């Protein structure tokens, strides 16, 4: 078969697959700009005219602003604390030799494959006991613990690759261990830190299981919960749900638009052998 023909067929298949992969989102995006009445007439029509005001409606009238802010509050706090705590632990585990170092690392690392089911019931019990149930602060704490193993794993391997000479030089210059962490390790590890921040933000923004178990108050729902409730309540208001979906994925799309390379590398790095 001539090379041009094979090329054309391959391109056709690839474009077809792209339509398959991106299709659902494009469809949802179109529906988010059409009213439910328009949609019922033709589910696959183009948004003419585009009803931008629906986004305003979703935000103000359907509690989306509440869900969005709750998610933002929880995710930003969790990621902030997570990054610092995780970096401290990773720095320590990668650079200091002491008995039990590998044991602790292994404990934390193995938690990456723990199924959430093994902790969810007991976490529920614990949070109830300490009055943190149905509480955004409680959820934030759980989120920190949830992503800690992955963060430590990614940062530890990065910190370990920093040449020791830098640390020796800093010590000779009189820096304390804490100063070394802040002034040597962290700045150099900025790329890896950025990766974990982006990764954790996306994973926690989308997190559903823990949220659905630990939050019941309408006013405290995070975005995934909000959307789900929407689905149940207003099953037929496809237009509004679509708009809500778009609001939910906008932060992700923004992050992806600016950091696609970093994000892809961060999420896939562990899998390439």
């Amino acid at each position, binding site marked *: 078969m001539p090379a041009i023909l094979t090329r054309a067929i391959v391109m056709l298949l690839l474009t077809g697959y792209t339509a398959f992969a991106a299709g659902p989102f494009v469809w949802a995006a179109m529906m988010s700009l059409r009213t439910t009445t328009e949609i019922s007439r033709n589910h696959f029509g183009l948004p003419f005219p585009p009803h931008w005001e629906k986004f305003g409606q979703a935000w103000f009238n359907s509690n989306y602003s509440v869900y969005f802010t709750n998610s933002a509050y929880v995710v930003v706090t969790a990621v902030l604390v997570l990054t610092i705590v995780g970096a401290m632990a990773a720095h320590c585990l990668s650079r200091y030799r*002491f008995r039990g170092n590998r044991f602790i690392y292994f404990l934390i690392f193995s938690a990456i494959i723990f199924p959430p*089911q*093994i902790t*969810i019931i007991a976490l529920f019990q614990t949070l109830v006991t300490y009055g943190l149930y149905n509480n955004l602060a409680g959820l934030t704490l759980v989120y920190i613990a949830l992503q800690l193993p992955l963060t430590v794993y990614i940062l530890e391997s990065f910190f370990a690759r920093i040449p020791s000479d830098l640390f020796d030089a800093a010590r000779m210059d009189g820096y304390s261990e804490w100063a070394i962490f802040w002034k040597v390790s962290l700045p150099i590890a900025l790329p890896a830190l950025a990766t974990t921040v982006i990764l954790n933000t996306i994973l926690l923004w989308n997190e559903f299981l823990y949220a659905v178990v630990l939050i019941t108050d309408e006013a405290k729902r995070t975005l995934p919960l909000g959307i789900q409730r929407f689905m149940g309540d207003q099953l037929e208001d496809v237009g509004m749900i679509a708009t809500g979906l778009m609001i939910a994925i906008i932060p992700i799309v923004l992050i992806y638009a600016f950091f696609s390379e970093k994000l*892809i590398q961060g999420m896939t790095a562990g899998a390439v052998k």
Partner: protein
Amino acid sequence: MNRNTERPPWASIIVFLLPALVIYTALTAYPVVRTFWNSLHKVLPNRPDEFVGLANYATLLFTDDIFWRSVRNTLVWSVASPLFEVGMALLLALALYAKVPGARFFRIAWFTPVLMSYVVVGILWVWIYNYDWGAANASLRFLGLDSLTRAWLGNPQTALPALIFITSWMWTGFNMVVLLAALHSLPSEVIEAAELDNCGWSAKLWHVIIPLIKPTLLNLLVLSFIGKMKIFDLVWITTKGGPLWSTETVSTYLYKRAFEWSTFDLGYPSTIAAVWFVIIMSCVLGLTRLLRSRDRLEY
């Protein structure tokens, strides 16, 4: 950092490690232990835990049909999905590897499904699978294949495959990106040597390329397997385990028993969690041991 002769700076170590260890112990390690503890008790609200020994385990393993049904569903999912996701991804990666124009665009486009919350994905696909106006049946009708239209999520026979299809749709892009990176990291001179050794495209693929990316392929299969064993969000949004337990997974069953059904006993669901935990960890250990290549593919 500190050579073997120096004593480790314990004060610093504690300062650095303590916050993480406190969080880990309180919110990860302790809950695991507590769950196992729960599994040996009847845990009712406002009452002290009642020790029941292995009674929960006995009930679970010998009489709980729903549990076993959910195990079967989850295992089917965990075995079928990886095969689709990785197989399809390999084909796509090879297509891009052959320096197709627009490779960068394709890579970014195909990766997007992975970034979305399962909630969003779930809702989208509930719509796609809608019998009357969903894209799935609409396409079939468009192609004149009306007889193939189904109530995909409402039919016990098609519900699980429909869900498996969704996760494949999500994760194929991710696997493809990983495989593409693996392909690009292959030493070009070995491939050129194969060309000189009279290898056409398919021979190169079969004899050289695939054997060399085997570690990555296996890695992806294991990762996918683990992911499907844990799945909850997608099922909860789309079918909640129905119809008729056909999509009930261990995680949805556990959730129902712990938080929805009015039994209030947290001991039994903890047993489910404990058993499932042991099963997953054994599978992972077994798989990695089994699939670990004897040889180091050093190049």
